[in-house]
């Protein structure tokens, strides 16, 4: 009898402790904070630039603004850290997380209209300085779909670290062989034939995801920015137009020059093997961003290897050449609790002090005059626009979510099939137009 009571008591205790667990965690967040100080929750993606710069910037901000206590969440998989809390209603106040990430958290919030309008931030003074934010920014960075996703002149995302993208290659190899960096696609094909004779493939890509900047630049070259904006806002028939066909055909031809093992390694696990092809002189060009230098810094490489980067070749002689610019975005969730404090912080990240800290970690913001102080590889990469290349910016317009339809899948992922020969360029083009049709109906 005694034993039974004991057992019963134990199991009751166990079930109680389960319930106790729940309430504990909920109350934890409240205590331990000075009630006068405002707590600002900043969540930032820990990317190739590292976490240190965020700690430093936040220290600097807390020093400049003693009334604020900043809580930082920085993680490589930021989405997985903050989204469970967000679903439970605990939103961070400021988030640095770009669009184009695999889990597409930023896109989901855009689709749900769950971002705060931050247009007024750009007319505010930078925290602790007498300059307006918009006067510090390089012009053009707040005019695209990447910051104004609904195309209504209102800014929902602040442009942060930018990085030019383009074709990366081994400059030493080209010098050694006496090959010129191609300026037009015709020169590109000629180079491809020459390289083939020496057993080198013209092209490879890490994964099809890297074609976003590549195709955006190509579309800009084929049809100019007007055409590009039409494509990005899903205008009817735009993907079947003459200009788009040109871009599709170039990728179709490029597929024939692609290193044969590329597709087998073009996934998130093995993509570095494709990047290694460039380091090993087995392929000449790959689309990539400036982060690749840091990503591959410990990888073995051919003797005398030297990174080079070029804008996409022009379609016609003396045609425009584009190098797409990626930038990470910083935004305030509409359900954040301390929006005003968040906006103050948002101005602070453009201050000289913060910019210097970021630049030290190679994270370059679109602030006027900042690119002059760069060094090493970065100087070469960021000077790409001084050498005649035009900057492309902005991606697809935001739509309601459409079940089972993804432009990224239709436009980029299919390239694996083009390279492996499972689909024709025509099939690809038709599928993209079809996806575009479905998304147009869901435009915001």
């Amino acid at each position, binding site marked *: 009898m005694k034993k039974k009571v004991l057992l019963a008591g134990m*199991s009751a205790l166990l079930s109680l402790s389960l319930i106790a667990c729940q309430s504990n965690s909920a109350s934890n967040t409240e205590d331990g904070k000075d009630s006068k100080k405002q707590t600002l929750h900043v969540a930032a993606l820990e990317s190739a630039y590292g976490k240190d710069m965020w700690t430093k910037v936040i220290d600097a901000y807390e020093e400049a603004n003693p009334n604020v206590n900043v809580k930082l969440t920085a993680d490589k998989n930021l989405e997985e850290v903050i989204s469970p809390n967000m679903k439970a209603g605990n939103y961070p106040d400021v988030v640095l997380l770009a669009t184009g990430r695999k889990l597409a958290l930023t896109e989901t919030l855009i689709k*749900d209209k769950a971002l705060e309008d931050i247009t007024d931030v750009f007319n505010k003074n930078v925290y602790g300085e007498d300059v307006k934010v918009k006067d510090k920014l390089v012009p053009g960075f707040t005019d695209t779909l990447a910051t104004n996703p609904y195309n209504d002149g209102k800014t929902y995302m602040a442009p942060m670290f930018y990085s030019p993208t383009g074709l990366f290659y081994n400059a030493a190899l080209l010098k050694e062989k006496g090959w010129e960096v191609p300026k037009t696609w015709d020169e590109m094909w000629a180079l491809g034939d020459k390289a083939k004779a020496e057993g080198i493939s013209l092209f490879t890509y890490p994964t099809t995801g890297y074609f976003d900047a590549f195709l955006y630049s190509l579309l800009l070259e084929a049809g100019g920015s007007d055409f590009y904006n039409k494509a990005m806002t899903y205008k009817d028939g735009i993907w079947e137009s003459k200009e788009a066909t040109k871009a599709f055909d170039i990728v179709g031809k490029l597929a024939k020059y692609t290193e044969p093992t590329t597709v*087998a390694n073009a*996934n998130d696990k093995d993509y570095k093997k494709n990047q290694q092809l460039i380091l090993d002189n087995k392929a000449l060009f790959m689309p990539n961003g400036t982060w690749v230098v840091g990503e591959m810094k410990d990888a073995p490489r051919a003797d005398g290897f030297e990174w080079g980067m070029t804008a996409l070749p022009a379609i016609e002689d003396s045609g425009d050449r584009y190098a797409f610019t990626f930038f990470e975005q910083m935004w305030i969730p509409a359900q954040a609790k301390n929006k005003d404090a968040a906006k103050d912080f948002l101005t602070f990240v453009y201050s000289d002090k913060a910019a210097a800290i970021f630049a030290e970690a190679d994270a370059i913001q679109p602030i006027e005059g900042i690119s002059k102080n760069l060094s090493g590889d970065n100087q070469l990469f960021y000077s790409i626009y001084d050498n005649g290349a035009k900057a492309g910016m902005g991606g697809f317009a935001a739509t309601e979510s459409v*079940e089972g339809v*993804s432009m990224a899948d239709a436009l980029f992922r299919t390239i694996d099939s083009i390279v492996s020969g499972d689909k024709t360029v025509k099939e690809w083009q038709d599928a993209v137009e079809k996806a575009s049709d479905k998304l147009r109906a869901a435009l915001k």
Partner: protein
Amino acid sequence: MSKTLEKRIFIFVCTVPALILLAIFMIVPTVEVFRMSLYKWGGFSNNKVFVGLDNFKILWGDINFIRSLQNSIVLIVFVTLITMVLAILFATLLTREKMKGNGFFRIIFYIPNILSIVVIAGIFSAVYDPATGLLNNLFALFNLDHLQKMWLGDQKIAIYSIGGALIWQAIGYYMVMYMASIANIPESFYEASALEGAGRIRQFFSITLPLIWNNIRTTLTFFIISTINLSFLLVQAMTGGGPDGATEVFLSYMYKQAYTNSSYGYGMAIGVVIFLFSFALSAIISRITNRDVLEY
């Protein structure tokens, strides 16, 4: 307090923790999946719109879903058949035959089962590597260059490459299960049949197989469930569904829709279909493999 009442209270108190856990972590989420499949919802906002069975209608015409369903079925059939044949074969050899290194092989076959699926993904992407991989180099060694393939790059065989890894990791587990039931068969059956002149193959089909039939039936359900689950993990870690959706299985497609395409409700509709599919498949298989249990 009467003895029966006391007993009832005791049973009640003992089962309550388990029941609460079951309710919170199994029943409520399952019901929730069914409920959410009727909504259009991005996953974050409070903006849930009831759309009835719309998600299922879209699903019916979604070619990508059909493809992922095909891939899953291919995997279930391919992995189950080959794993089962090999596992029974190895189990018979290791229990019935007196070979050198019996214990050693038992351990070797079981090791893959201890490894986490991410490690297996790592091993197999090294094995399948087109340039430096074990498989292609092995073929080169024996001058079988025409058999060299882009194992994960060729869309026609990529799904079977995934299947190969699944088979490799599953054999040990099922082998141990079959070994346990083969070891239970009385030795006298084999002795008697040997006296009557039955060879090893005859013994296998007339004694071993019928007597472990019930065990095989049970494992068939395991095959279905584990292939559905593990194929998702392996695909996620190895190919991400690529190239161009050639290795997408229905769970990875559901994940993609729910989390990266901001169509949470649609993802849940896929979840419902998977739920019903695996339930129905298990029931059908259990029904058609039903035989009288042989007593011994």
